[in-house]
């Protein structure tokens, strides 16, 4: 079981690294992180952008003494197209957002012709390191979908399960969250959670335990769950928290960072190559672990 960000980095070393990471329009923070990951022999950066500007950024950094490549392009649209095509063609194992604007980047990744989709819905998973014990928890989808359909929730769940198994949480325990722990037809999230839970009982997600609907108190605290009459091995011990929609997902993801002060990283799943976004709420100090997670995934089968 991989329980800390440090263990993610350790495990990435045992993957078939260094792998190539393609980044368009990097800034100094990207160069710093990719330099650290390169110096640690995890990756080889491939930058796409204005060659001269990138060389200036690299000069005097850790990366200057490492292997890296630059593809010189004229403008941002060309940088985006080149970076996405490089990842789509198997010339890179990981794609990061770099300095491309969010909406344009997500649109390019979601383009069928880019070769990064694998037929499933994509999703974003936030990974947190608990403070009180060595354990990681996954919260999803915290960025990509506004109001996922039931089918999309299945994919979101599948994507997270694949990652949880890669992190050796096996069988993964999933809390399908809603506002209450009882099924209520007026609250659609409770219906979706109940169906996912039933599908899991019938092994439709393979070796996994999905419990739902669970309200957050039942998900987090076994004693609280028992007082509400909910008995499950998921309560108080969930590995994956599946949220109903983006209002919950995005706000929860940020609350855990800013009020909970929890270390957090994130990755786009459901693509042929792991994709890393530039999220202001991912602390710079965790971003090598974020790259390492992507290295692990690229060596696994996500």
């Amino acid at each position: 079981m991989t329980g800390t960000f440090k263990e993610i980095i350790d495990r990435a070393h045992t993957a078939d690294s260094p792998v190539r990471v393609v980044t368009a329009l990097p800034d100094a923070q990207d160069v710093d992180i990719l330099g650290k990951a390169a110096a640690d022999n995890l990756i080889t950066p491939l930058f796409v952008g204005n060659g001269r500007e990138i060389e200036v950024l690299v000069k005097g950094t850790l990366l200057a003494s490492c292997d890296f490549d630059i593809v010189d392009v004229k403008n941002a649209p060309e940088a985006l197209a080149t970076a996405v095509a490089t990842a789509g063609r198997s010339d890179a194992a990981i794609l990061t957002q770099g300095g491309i604007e969010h909406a344009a980047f997500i649109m390019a990744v979601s383009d069928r012709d880019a070769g990064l989709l694998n037929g499933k819905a994509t999703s974003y998973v936030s990974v947190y390191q608990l403070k009180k014990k060595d354990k990681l928890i996954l919260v999803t989808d915290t960025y990509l979908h506004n109001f996922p359909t039931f089918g999309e929730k299945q994919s979101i769940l599948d994507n997270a399960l694949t990652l949880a198994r890669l992190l050796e949480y096996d069988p993964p325990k999933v809390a399908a969250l809603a506002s209450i722990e009882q099924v209520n037809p007026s609250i659609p999230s409770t219906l979706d959670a109940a169906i996912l839970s039933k599908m899991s009982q019938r092994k439709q997600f393979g070796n996994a335990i999905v419990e739902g609907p669970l309200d957050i108190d039942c998900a987090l605290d076994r004693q609280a769950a028992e007082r509400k009459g909910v008995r499950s091995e998921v309560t108080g011990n969930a590995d994956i928290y599946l949220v109903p929609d983006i209002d919950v997902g995005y706000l929860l993801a940020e609350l855990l960072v800013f009020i909970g002060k929890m270390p957090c990283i994130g990755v786009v799943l459901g693509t042929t190559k792991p994709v890393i976004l530039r999220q202001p709420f991912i602390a710079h100090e965790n971003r090598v672990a974020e790259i390492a997670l992507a290295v692990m995934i690229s060596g696994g089968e996500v």
Partner: protein
Amino acid sequence: MITTLDDVSRLAREKGPKRLAVLAPEDEEFMKAVKECRDKGYIEPVLIGHRGRMKAVADTVEFDLGTVEQIFELDRQAIANLGTSMLFAGNVDMASKGQIPTSFIYRSIIREEAKAGTGRTISVISLWEIPDLKRFIAFTDTGANIYPDLKAKKAVIRNAVFLFHVLGYATPRISVLSGQREIGGVLDSYRDGVLLREAAEAGEFGSCEIVEAVSFSDFSLAPNTRLQTNGNTDISGIPEILLVPTLDTGNILCKLDFFLDVHRRSLVMTSRGPALIPSRSDFCDSIVGEIAMGVVVADRIREGGLTA
């Protein structure tokens, strides 16, 4: 201005006892809390419920009901109606839900507010005490409206602003929380926020301010900056009132006290005083804290002549 739960406990001792109608106290954690609050001088309880079941749990937690006012009633809705009508008639200062479904007490409150012609609707306000932040914040509505529309959100804001005024916050700031981000178009939660801000600026909610920030990164990070190190997050700018878009959002966020180093106190503000609706998963300490909060709020409403 009341800023910490220590303030609340101290004031509850000073201002108590207040009369609390307790609706069906038939659970141990709950009866234990009622006993503890009476011992501390917060409340003089009026227990309403099934005679045998109340006696049985009272015996278990060694609570002598000899001098405690009791009203025996079997029907759950009748219990809710009775306690709520006592609150609205001024016979008690506050009411608390025990082992009755939340919807029953909501129904009673809605009926009494309609009779009183207050125009008030029901919403649940969940206050948080966060270490290092020397004031309260609150999520709302965390319990009543599943998908509040704009009109309902306005009512929710009015209730929360009322509570913060009662607690001594002259101009509470409000954020209309939203999952709005760089992608995904404009969310309903965000669009409502824009409209609510206009309404606040036009004075619809009295003395308060709706800020532009809609998420936790907005509160803590300057534009175009990124978090650098774990835990080094400045939340001093977080607004007092966080209006949540849906029940799912509100309930999931506010109950993170089971996980984080924060304390939660939830209550419903009726026009005549607080109604407490402890969750079935809440433990004794948390219920005691909620009752203390109720005592302080009830006192300020009664003493200050404040009404909605």
